[in-house]
C-alpha cells in the first residue's frame, strides 16, 4: 500500500467519523467540529485524487489542489459564522444544547432555559 493510498483511506475514515459525530452529538459545538472533520477528510481525498492526476511534469493535478485551497478558506469562514451564531444563542438563552425531551413548538410556560 502506497503512502497516497493510506492517506486516502484515512480521509475516508475521517469523513465517516465526522458523519458519526454530526449525527450522534446533540451539542452544536460538537456538530461544528464534526462537520470540520468531514471537511478535512474531503480535502485529504481531494489531495489524493489530485496526486493521482500527476501528469505533464506536474507532481499533481493543479485543479483539485486549487479547489482545496478555496475550500479550506470557505470551510473556515463557515465555521467562524456557525460559532458566532452559537455564542449569540448562548448570550440570549444561556444554553446551546437542545433538550432531548423537548416537544415540538415553544414551551408552554414561555420559559426558554
Amino acid at each position, binding site marked *: 500500500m502506497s503512502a497516497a*493510498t493510506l492517506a*486516502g*483511506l484515512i*480521509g*475516508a*475514515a475521517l*469523513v*465517516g*467519523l465526522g*458523519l*458519526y459525530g454530526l*449525527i*450522534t452529538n446533540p451539542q452544536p459545538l460538537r456538530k461544528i467540529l464534526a462537520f470540520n472533520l468531514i471537511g478535512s*477528510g474531503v480535502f485529504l*481525498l481531494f489531495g*489524493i*485524487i489530485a496526486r*493521482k*492526476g*500527476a*501528469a*505533464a*511534469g*506536474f507532481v*499533481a*493535478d*493543479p*485543479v483539485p*489542489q*486549487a*479547489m482545496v*485551497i*478555496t475550500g*479550506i*478558506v*470557505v470551510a*473556515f*469562514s*463557515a465555521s*467562524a*459564522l456557525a460559532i*458566532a*451564531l452559537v*455564542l*449569540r444563542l448562548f448570550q440570549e438563552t444561556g444554553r446551546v444544547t437542545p433538550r432531548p425531551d423537548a416537544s415540538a413548538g415553544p414551551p408552554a410556560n414561555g420559559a426558554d432555559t
Partner: protein
Amino acid sequence: MLLGFRSLRPVTLALAGVVLSLPDPAPTLAPEAAQNLPGTGLGNPITAVLIAFRSFDTMLEKVVLVLAVVGVWSLAPDRYWGGAPGAPRAARPESTLAFLAQLLPPFGILIGIHIFWVGADEPGGAFQGGAILAAMWMITMMARLTEAPPVSSIWLRLALIAGPAVFLATGVAGVAMASGFFAYPAGFAKPLILFIEVFMTLSIAVTLPMLVAGPPRRLPRR
C-alpha cells in the same frame, strides 16, 4: 449510537472503495494546465488555476468570505453597532503571549509577504500568504497588544472588499481590454494577476481576523 455506527460504515467503506479503485492513469487536467501555463506568465500552475483559469470561481469565493463577515457582524446587538469586536484591552497584557506576539510578527509579516510573492512561480500564493499575515494580526489581538478596529471604520471595510472588488473590476475590464469577461490581455497577464493578488492578500489578511474577533461587543465611540 448503533444507528450512527451503521450509518457511517457504508459511507466510509464506499469512500475507501473509491480510493482503492481510482483509475490508473487517472483523469487529469494537468496537461491542459501545462499547455496554457505559458499564456499566464506564471510558473505555479495552482496560482494560474486560481487567478486565471478558474478566476470567476475564486472571485466568488472571496465574496463568500465578505458575506461571512457580514453574517458575523449582523449578530451584534443594536447598541453595539459601529463599535469594536472583542473585549476591552486589559491594563496588563498576559506576559508570555505578549512576548510571543512581539517576537513573531516581524518575521511572520515578512514570511507572509514572501509566500504571497513567490506564489507566482513556487508553492505559495495569496491565500497562504494572507493566512499567515492574518495569524500575525490575530496573535497581537489575542495578546491584547492591539485592538480590533470598530466595524464602522471605512478603512476596515475598504480592506475587506478590496480583494473581490479589484478582482471583479479587472474581470469586467477584460471585456474591453481583452477577449472577454475575466480574460487578461496577452502578454500582460502576469502583472495583472499579481495586482489582483496584492488586494486578495490584503482582504484575506483582514477578513480572517475579523471572523475570529466576532461581532461588535463594545459601544461605538461617539
